[in-house]
């Protein structure tokens, strides 16, 4: 889906850091050390997190060569809400909600299935914002 170009104000908001109470919390699960919670304070950080998530591994791959096979998770419904409520990007928020759909008994599997299309939309928006504000950090 093609997102419309964001307004400068929105782009600025999207590229800025959110306060602590508005952070998103994701997780990375690595073998043997349990779950590490990741605090995400910006849209770009969220994109980086999703980029680092490999979602296509098989059970066998979780067996082999440690670091590439991690189980990553971010509540994508929460992400969709956050994009709308905290960052004010209702268009993207709606688009994400449509991709993510409803709740699941197995959130990990659901994440795997949805992360690619979600990332595509997020990256599209990030690119748009950066093009709009090239000097932004």
């Amino acid at each position, binding site marked *: 889906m093609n997102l419309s170009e964001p307004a400068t104000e929105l782009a600025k908001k999207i590229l800025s850091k959110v306060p602590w109470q508005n952070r998103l919390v*994701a997780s990375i699960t690595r073998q*043997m050390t349990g*779950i*590490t919670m990741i605090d995400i304070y910006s849209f770009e950080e969220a994109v*980086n997190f999703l980029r680092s998530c490999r979602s296509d591994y098989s059970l066998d791959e979780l067996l082999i060569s440690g*670091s590439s096979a991690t189980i990553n*998770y971010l509540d994508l419904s929460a992400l969709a809400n956050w994009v709308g409520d905290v960052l004010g990007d209702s268009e993207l928020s709606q688009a994400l909600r449509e991709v993510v759909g409803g709740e699941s008994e*197995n959130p990990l599997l659901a994440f795997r299935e949805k992360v690619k299309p979600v990332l595509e939309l997020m990256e599209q928006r990030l690119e748009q914002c950066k093009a709009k504000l090239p000097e932004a950090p």
Partner: protein
Amino acid sequence: MKGHMGKILRVNLTNKTVKTIDTTQYEEWGGGHGIGSAIFWDLVASQLPISPYDPKNVVTIMTSPLAGTLAPTTGRTEVQGLGPQPYPIEWFTRSNFGGRFAVMLKNAGWDGIVIEGKADKPCWVNIVDDDVDIPDAADLWGLDAWETQEEIWREVSGGKFGKWVETSTGRYTTQRPAVIAISQLGEVQSRIACLMHDAGNGAGQGGFGGVFGAKNLKAVSVIGAKGAIEVADPKALFETWKWALENYRGNIETRKPLASLGSGELLTFGGSPTVGYMGLREKNMRPSGCTGCPKACRAHLGSGIGNEQQCVESVYYGSYVGARYGAITIENDIAADLTGKFAINAYELMKIIPYLQALNAMGVLGKGKPIDTDLSFDMLGTAAFVEELVRKMIKGKDIGLALREGGVRAAKQWGRMEADLKTGLLPYAYWGYPEHGYDPRTEAEWGYGSILGERDINEHDFNSFVFWYPLSFFATGDYPISAKEVAQICSEKLVPYTGDPLMLDYSNEGIYSDHFVKLVAWHRHYTRFWKQSIGFCDWAFADLVNNYAPNNRGMTPDGEVRFFNAVTGKNITFAEGMEIGRRIWNLDNAIWILQGRHRDMVKYSDYIYDVPWAGGIGGPAYPLPMYVNGEWKFANAVGRKIDRAKFEDFKTKFYTLEGWNTSSGWPTRSTLEALNLKHVADQLAAKGKLG
């Protein structure tokens, strides 16, 4: 003696004297932890409570009778003593490390080392076979743990290696000294300083680095060429080695598992090499194993960065590296190396860093903030950030001064401890230890073992198949083994509590049940004897569910016994070993009671009771085997909290099973005397602390 070398080195740093303890005096305790607890009791119990920094604190460094033989994974060293890390009471605690030290110590003719007193100035202990020296450490004090070891290698065995060197006892070896050392952090008596051996074998928890520092002890070095470990039945030992590798592991390059269990299989005996290394994998590398270990969990890299770092060291900082660079980079491994070089508790770093990040984001901690620091948060994700933090701790500058006492005590200094333990912002669940990742609210056996003990247990015996396999199944939708089978396998193997699959029921009712109490008790006794005393490594044993083994059934309880008996000739049964474990567990509890333990203080941090386990927002999964409505399945424990009343009830059940007074949690005289611990009962009675 078979297995044991027959003598334990007793070093008095105050007088700079060395004596020998006859191992046969303590043989009934098995080895390792059992002997360490028994010696500690004899030397220190009557003086408790004392501070871990008191010269009267004794540190024991013990091997097992199996170390150095062909009993796989047993080349480990158990360290014990009063530890400054636990909170609020500085419990008698333990830590354990692998590498080369245990085997080298036995090759020098020693079963272990007992360290007491305090030197008047920095020193180190130099063991060359029977000859023991306590030289000055002026040239070592101020060096990091790696520099210290390499300097000692030079001092003890000259320049290059790879050739035979002759010891002063007229024996030859090609090996280099095995050294355990502290860094500058231990020198300043930090509660989160470790003992470090080689690049990454650390006695990480407990704060033993700080204890060494308080004793002015920089390092202990051993090189041995004279000792030869006697084996009762060499033929049986070699046969058992072959049996174990063929049936429970197979040829790594040609084998196919019976069922793919995802990453969880890595904690079984059958697991693949380099499993523990979770950093930036390179094409040029090799697996690296401790002496005597066929699993080889670690790696040596072509870059040389990240050698021997594994598990928490190679992941504690990964999320920050990932967040900064979009992927894991070499910064992750440089950060891993920092834990070795500076001999610092990586679990503490793993929880301290996000805590600092949160406080910074909240505006509470930072430049000019209420908790003032010039720590460069914009460098978060670089290894340099970690090094800056550690150097602040070493110098005692800035927030380093508070943080080198560990996260809980730092929070206390900042006036935030109660509040942050209530919300879980400071996720230290038990005895001031950072929560490991296997949360008490979900994986109950881990939490119970930790709170009923004195530290984060770090015992993965059930963890691999109650959590890691199901997590992989959840993540891929692939279920090659069922919860029912997992429970069934355990019910066959958990001697002496066989026949009760409900011991593996992690449902909301299950975790408070009479069945679960037995699981926890089994776990305490098994780990105290078969692992911490006899040396079997946590990353290979217990071998319960093993997908490379016939019928997915690992070699526990037969394997441990076969190896033990082949080496020692003692012909014990698994159950007899468990009884020794129970005896050791009772002795440990007696020591804790003399330190002030009572059931009323056996409580998790508030957040375990008050905050539902959520994972992320909406939460990831913590799938566990559960028996619900007459059916076994792997179900998600998300949203769970521990119920205060039910937990108290569980404690009562546990104390009943152990034969301890349920009002106090103290062992009774009859329990202790039945375990041949009358002298312990008498001592407790004298202090008015008998159950």
